[in-house]
Every structure is written in structure tokens, then in C-alpha cells.
């Protein structure tokens, strides 16, 4: 009977030790994830001549992804963008553009409305760009190009009312 108790006790100790080790391992054994080198998220620049006309301008979660690792094709998109004009004083917001590397890639229009909304499904899949070689954007070897994506609400004379520039980091193309 005593031997039974000893065996049972040793077994319980073993089990407890394994459980504890597993919990600690789960906390410590997470794979080392490459960290993008620190850099600014971007910049916000509001036109000083129209601070009252544009009441709200929000850009959320710019991102870049690589659907096929064998192709040098990445896609940039935003979770959402929203620009709102008070419509009570000029200048009035008329367009919203998204530019990548100086090239306009999206143009939204306010159609008798004071708000332009953009969500990721406005451009299914996103805006295609080259991913770039590892570290081509100085963000680490897991990453390729870093694009400065410019989002600009424009007034009826095509003058910028505000400018947001989001630094978007893309995965590397490393076949």
C-alpha cells in the first residue's frame, strides 16, 4: 500500500512539473519575430488657410501585404479614410486622392455631400506595388520597400486642404 502511495505521489509530482514547464514554455518559446526598424508612421499636415472648412480627416490602419511570396507584387490599402467638410464656408471639399510614389492611384468625389468615405473594399485587393528586395526600405530583412502614401482632400479648385502621408512597409520579395 505504501509503495502504491509513493508511486502515485511521484506521478503527481511529474505531472505538475510537466504542466508548469509547459506553461512557462508557452510564455518563453514564442518565435523571435523580426522587428521593423523604428520609423515615423507618417505625417499630418493641414492647410492653414482652411482649418475651419475641413472638420474631420481620419486615416486608419494603412497596410501592405504579399498574397503570393513567389511574385514581386504587394498590395497597399487602408482600413478606412474619412474626410468631412462643414459645408458652411469655402473652400469646399470636392475630391480625395491617394497617391503612391507621386502617382495618383485613387480619386474619390464628394457628390453634393460633405463627406468622402473610403474603406478597404473600395479597391478590392488593394493598390499593387512592387514589394522590393529584402531591406530595400531599411526596415529589416523581412521587409522590402517603405512607401510614403499621400492622402489629400482637395477643394473645388484642386487645392489641397490637408495632407496625410502614411509610411507603409511592405514584405520583402525573396523567392
Amino acid at each position, binding site marked *: 500500500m505504501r*509503495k*502504491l502511495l509513493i*508511486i*502515485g505521489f511521484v*506521478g503527481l509530482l*511529474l*505531472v505538475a512539473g*510537466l*504542466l508548469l514547464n*509547459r506553461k512557462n*514554455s*508557452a*510564455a*518563453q*518559446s*514564442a*518565435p523571435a*519575430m*523580426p*522587428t*521593423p526598424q*523604428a520609423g515615423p*508612421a*507618417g505625417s*499630418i499636415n493641414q492647410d492653414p488657410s482652411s482649418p475651419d472648412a475641413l472638420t474631420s480627416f481620419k*486615416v*486608419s*490602419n*494603412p*497596410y*501592405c*501585404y*504579399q*498574397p*503570393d*511570396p513567389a511574385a514581386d507584387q504587394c*498590395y497597399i*490599402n487602408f*482600413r478606412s479614410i474619412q474626410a468631412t467638410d462643414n459645408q458652411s464656408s469655402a473652400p469646399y471639399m470636392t475630391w480625395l486622392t491617394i497617391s503612391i510614389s507621386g502617382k495618383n492611384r485613387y480619386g474619390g468625389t464628394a457628390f453634393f455631400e460633405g463627406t468622402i468615405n473610403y474603406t*478597404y*473594399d473600395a479597391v*478590392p*485587393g*488593394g493598390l499593387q506595388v512592387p514589394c522590393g528586395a529584402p531591406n530595400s526600405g531599411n526596415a529589416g530583412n*523581412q*521587409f522590402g520597400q517603405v512607401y510614403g502614401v499621400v492622402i489629400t482632400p482637395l477643394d473645388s479648385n484642386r487645392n489641397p486642404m490637408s495632407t*496625410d502621408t*502614411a*509610411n*507603409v*512597409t*511592405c*514584405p*520583402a520579395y*525573396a523567392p
Partner: protein
Amino acid sequence: MRQYRFVSLFICLLLLICVSGSTRTQAESTAVTLTVSNPYCAQSVPASPICWINVRNISATSSDPNFLGVQITVNGKTRAFFSQFFETSVTINKNMLGKGLQVNCGLPNASGQPDYGLQYSVGISGIVSGGSPTTDTANVFCPYFVTRVYMPAVYR
């Protein structure tokens, strides 16, 4: 004797339960709160060797001013990076990645599971500049792909 056998069997059973595989590991960091739901792999065309990995939704929140965003890796290769733009959170849903992240489905039993193809390690990390990431790692099993070769009928 019977009691010895019973106790030994009981201990063996407990050991088996403890060493069974885990499909998720998480390193806790106080800087980023990370929530991941339903990573999955789908084969939209059964005659194709292409599968698509995606996640139903991901949410990362941090009050740390050095919070950069969320990184998604597949078998250690970075496939997506979601930034914060003067925000304290990143929210991702499955529709933001189009069809998903393309991978090879793999042959039957390629992962050791007879009804599946390859297994992929999908890493989702909340990244803080100069700090430790908060990482969730999910083991995702893909449907298998079977090549079919159709021989011509030859009449003599």
C-alpha cells in the same frame, strides 16, 4: 498486482495528456493586447494546388507610443504588415487581405494528418519599437491537393 497495473496505467495516461501537441503559443507582453480569431486555410478550387490562409479577425491595442502595428508571418516569412497611423489600435478582418495569403495545399497526409495537406505556422505579432512583440502562433492545416492524370483511351 492489479493495483500496481492500475496506478501505472493511470500515470501513463496522465503523461500522454501532458505531452500532446498544442496548436497555439503566446508570448505575453504588457505593451500590446492582441486578440486573434479563427485562422483558417481554404482551397477554393479543389483541382488547384493553391490554398489561401486568412484570419477571421485580429485586434491589437496598445497605449505604448512606440506601438508600430501588426505583422503576419507564414512559416517565418513576413506576408503582411498593418501600421497604426497616429492610432492606438490596429483592426484587421478577413476581407482586408483579398482572397488571403497564397500557399501550397500539399499532398494528402503532408502534415501527418491523413485528411489534410500541409500545415503552416501562422504568426501574428503586435510590434513595439525597441520592445518585445506580443505574438500568437497558430498551426493551420490546409486541405490536400491530389494530382489527377487522365490517360487517353487508345484503340488498336
